[in-house]
Structure formats: structure tokens, C-alpha cells
């Protein structure tokens, strides 16, 4: 029982360290103290981030579809909101 608890605590710590590494991946890598096997290599994390952003920005850069612009025009015609 106690052993299970220890394992849980350990893995929770790993998670926290990993998060920390995630926030300041570059800094952690530089310090050379990354002994956590679950910590993600800064370069890999950077690559993942870039791919995610590329996928997302691919949609962001698309022109706004007419149907959505038309919708806003219709909403405006019906009634303007009182305040913003």
C-alpha cells in the first residue's frame, strides 16, 4: 500500500517537473540538469509547437467565408445590441 503511494507521489512529481520544463524548455535544457526521463527535449517541444502553430495558422489565414459575413450583416439589420 505504502509502495503504491510512493509511486503515485513520484509520478506526480514527474508531471510537475515536466510542466516546468515545458514552460521554460530552453532554459532547462541550457542548465543541463534535466534528469527527468519524461521531460521533453526542448528541440522536440519547439518542433511540436511549430507544427501545431502551422496547422492552426493555416486556418487563421484563410479568408472569412461569405456566409459568416452575411450572417453578421443580417444580425445588424435585425437589431443592434444596446451596448458593447
Amino acid at each position, binding site marked *: 500500500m505504502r509502495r503504491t503511494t510512493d509511486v503515485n507521489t513520484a509520478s506526480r512529481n514527474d508531471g510537475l517537473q515536466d510542466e516546468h520544463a515545458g514552460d521554460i524548455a530552453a532554459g532547462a535544457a541550457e542548465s543541463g540538469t534535466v534528469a527527468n526521463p519524461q521531460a*521533453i527535449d526542448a528541440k*522536440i517541444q519547439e518542433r511540436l509547437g511549430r507544427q*501545431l502553430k502551422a496547422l*492552426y*495558422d*493555416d486556418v*487563421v489565414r484563410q479568408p472569412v467565408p461569405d456566409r459568416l459575413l452575411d450572417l453578421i450583416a443580417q444580425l445588424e439589420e435585425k437589431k443592434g445590441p444596446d451596448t*458593447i
Partner: protein
Amino acid sequence: MSPSNNLRDLLIAQIPNLRAFAYSLCGNGDEADDLVQETLMRSWANIGSFQEGTNLRAWLFTILRNAFYSERRRRRNEVDNGDGEAELRLVDAPRQDSHMDFQDFREALADLPEEQREALVLVGASGFSYEEAAEICGCRVGTVKSRVSRARRRLVELLALENAADLGQDATSESVLSMAGSVTSQFQRR
């Protein structure tokens, strides 16, 4: 400028970001635009509850996310055997970019548990802070952090990226970037 002109401009400015988030939830372009449409209608109707000076984008993302989950609950109730057939995939329509690397990433992202993907997108792509993402998702900051962290680790597993050696040369990332550029120009041409 009348208030409604102002609101219209603010809303229109947020549409590209709303669409990108909707895509990441729906994985399907038409559904994503339906979701954005619903979001615009709800936000227009409820603009009175928006507190001026707070983050309009976060407010809109919250509405979009709520609309997404309530629509899905509704559909699940409608369809008896709602066994997730309509479960959402980012990979629904394979697009022109057959670049393996990029496609692998797209599929790995789609394989993530929904809550992890959502957290990762909000923080890693939409540019929200952990605090804002927590507000949008209606959960605690620590929960968002651990979801993002687990999402990253899962992606590394799925993509079998065990160490930096797997990264290949800089050429890899450059080709990903240029691929993103060419995909964009395809859309612009349409």
C-alpha cells in the same frame, strides 16, 4: 461610429481565430463554420453580458466551446447509438499537403484525448495564458497545465520522437514551414 458598427468590426476581426479553434474541435470545415456561425449569433444576442475591458477573444472562445459541447450532447441524445461515429477528427479530409511529416503530426493531434488537444491548442496555438485557457475550459489552471503536459508527451509517443536525433536536420522544420506556406497559398487561390 455606432456601437453596433464597433461590435461588428470586433467580431469580424475574431472570426479567423474562432474558425481555427472550431477546426481543432470539429476537424471538419463545414461543421467548424456552423459552429462559428452559432458562436456569432450567441455572442450577438448576449453581448450585454460581456464586460467591456475584459478579453473579448476569451469570451468568444468560451461561447464557441460551450456551443460545441452542447451541440454534441444534443446530437448524442438524438442518435440512439451515439457511439462516437461522429467523433471528431482533425484528419477528416486529407488535404493537399501530403508531406508525411506534417500529416503525421495532424493525425497524432487528432489522436489526442479531446481535453488534451483543446488545452494544447488554446495554449500552444491560440496564444492564451494557462489562466485564460482555464477560464475558457471551466477548469483549474493546474488542470490545464497537466493536460498540456500530457498532450505533449503523448504527441512525442505517437510521433515516436524519442530524442533530438529523430529531429533530422533543420531542413525538416523548414519544409514544414514552407509546406504551411504553400497550403495557405492554395487557399488564397481558391
